[in-house]
């Protein structure tokens, strides 16, 4: 550091990495970063969905979606995932009101609902593979179905792992009102994963059967 440069700690210095300037700024830099990341995720899932639709009902060999996909199970897992969005929202509100215990409860419930969704998917896939013989190589439906639903499930898994980390930090009393921005971004991601599922569910299980 040469002598001509005043030290960083001058009175006008703005501390921290996220030094968005004063005034009415609607979103912080981290929030914009998350939105940008989610935009790339939208592009990713849109590609998978477009491919799924373009191959729908093109198979000459079975099994078909109507023969294999079981609605009652998936409606159950869908309810789990959608209600987890409500739970994570309530967790965020609890944190905002500085009620740590309540936050941990809602947050743990969100994780449990996410795990329940994954368990349902595992059961469903086991059924598809063992009973119906539908694998990724069986036909185009298998190819596109496992890719689309699998990538969504991967995102749910990543979300559950991230939320477990946050829960660990929260139990160690390191998630507070002051750093709730990170918690908020995790919940944005989780809402996004839910919205993707609404599209996947509608296209694969409702209109695509």
């Amino acid at each position, binding site marked *: 550091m040469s002598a001509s440069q005043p030290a*960083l700690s001058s009175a006008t210095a703005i501390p921290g990495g*996220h030094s968005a300037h004063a005034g009415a700024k609607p979103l912080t830099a981290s929030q914009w*970063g998350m939105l940008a990341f989610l935009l*790339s995720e939208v592009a*990713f899932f849109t*590609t998978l969905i477009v491919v799924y639709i373009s191959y729908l009902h093109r198979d000459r060999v079975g099994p078909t979606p109507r023969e294999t996909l079981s609605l009652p199970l998936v409606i159950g897992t869908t309810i789990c995932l959608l209600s987890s969005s409500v739970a994570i929202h309530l967790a965020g509100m609890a944190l905002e009101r500085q009620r740590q215990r309540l936050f941990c409860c809602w947050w743990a419930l969100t994780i449990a609902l996410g795990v329940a969704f994954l368990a349902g998917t595992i059961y469903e896939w086991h059924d598809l593979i063992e009973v119906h013989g539908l694998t990724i*190589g069986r036909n185009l439906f298998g190819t596109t179905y496992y890719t689309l639903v699998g990538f969504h499930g991967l995102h749910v898994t990543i979300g559950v792992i991230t939320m477990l980390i946050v829960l660990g930090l929260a139990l160690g009393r390191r998630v507070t009102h002051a750093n709730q921005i990170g918690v908020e971004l995790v919940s944005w991601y989780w809402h996004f994963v839910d919205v993707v599922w609404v599209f996947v569910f509608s296209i694969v299980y409702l209109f695509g059967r």
Partner: protein
Amino acid sequence: MSLAVEPKVDSEIAAAKTEPVRSWPATLHDWVTTVDHKKIGLMYIGMAIFYLVVGGCEAMLIRWQLFYAHNNFLRPDTFNQLFTMHGTTMVFFMGMPILIGIGNYLVPLMIGARDMAFPRLNALGFWVTLFGGLLAYFSFAVGGAPAIGWFAYAPLTEPAFARGLGTEFWCLGLIVSGIGTITAAVNFVATIIGMRAPGMTITKIPFFAWTMLWTSVQILIAIPPLTAALVMVMLDRDFGAHFFDVQNGGSALLWQHLFWFFGHPEVYILILPVFGMITEVIPVFSRKVLFGYEFMAAATMAIAFISLGVWAHHMFCVGMSRMQDVWFAVASLLVSIPTGIKFFNWLATMYGGRIRMASPMLFACGFLSMFLIGGLTGIMLAAAPFDFQLSDSYFVVGHFHWVLIGGTLFGTFAGIHYWYPKVTGRMLSERLARWQFWLLYIGFFVTFGPMHISGFLGMPRRIYTYEPSRGWEFLNQLTTIGALIQAPSFAIFVWNVVWSYFKGRPAGDDPWDAWTLEWGTSSPPPSYNFASIPTVRSRRPLWDLKHPDDPDWKYE
């Protein structure tokens, strides 16, 4: 903010560069673990120049094979591997990294921030990009690079046609480096929107930062579909899926749509930041305010959006419906409107200015002349009936090299010559820069000009040899000679960069008498960029400081 213009003496620059003298493991550790946007930017640029040399050597081998008809220098399969890796390298491991690197170095400085929004994510992005490149090149070690062309059309990527593991490594390399590119784009969006200096409203943003913002948006929309498509290729090859497997109902055409939905925005990803650099260079060296800032800004947005709807002009010959042909031809021609706006604004900025032909301006003029020609052949190819005749011929090869070298590379060199004094505190040698420019300019014409003619004469791209009776031999020899003229130009550039780093004339903080914030801090900038965050009132904050009697903010 220091505005001292007196050049520092050598010892001071040396002191600023090396700080305390350190052992090389400590220095290496410093660079490997850094999260400073400037160091990361320089590592991106270093990576890009390394791959530029690698991709350039591949091009020289390709050109030597085509020097004579029936040449036996390379085997056909090796030739296919080389043009695949040449294209992949230049687009993914040279083109995008050098622009992201320059952006990384400059964007926080230009917008008055201390670093990017997510410094650690930034470091991750660089290392992931670098190792993605190494992963793709690892294919040479496992039985040969893929021989599928850089756009890897199905069914060439199916296991029956590409037997080795090369295609797997190629896919993995592009997936991994694509993740790095996306993290960089996320970082640019967050930084440019969320971390500008006080007073720098979105309409006062330096133009290069504006183009980086829209490039990032394009990256966020275009790269994920490529990632998804590459995953599908790997699922096909390694897990028995049938996405592009025609025998089991898959579609080879689908790959073309997915690839070009990435591939066409990609060429604008490679040119928009260069537009930004040119837009910074031309006003400074014409001593005039940029003409039509608002129109330039809107044109950048228009290009970013229109480019998402033109991809199938790469596929006219595949046999789409008439309606699709017309749509994609018209959409492609539409791009020429915002591009034309930019072009005329650059010319209007120069018109009546006191033009200084220093090396950055020289390369900017090279860019203007070349990009015009490349743009015009682009308009020719956007017309579907013309494309039916010349698709996949050397005319196309000539066209895209004309825009990527004449456009992206010349513009990038303009930027590098412009900002080198800021990065190192030393001036590049003007004499060497002029040799570099003229060798590149002449070599470029001799290389890629004849390609248009051999394309008209029917020479298809990607052939490893040709019949002497076709009349292509002389044109190919010209092309190879042109490549041989260009090669020393790159050597001179690397020599100039290294020599000037140690022996160049001290530059001072603001050698070009420029107007954007990066010239307001020292050269090289301290790790924290600005001792105190500057406040901005106009698009030319340094003009305001230098001319308090006649500041820009009175007129904007």
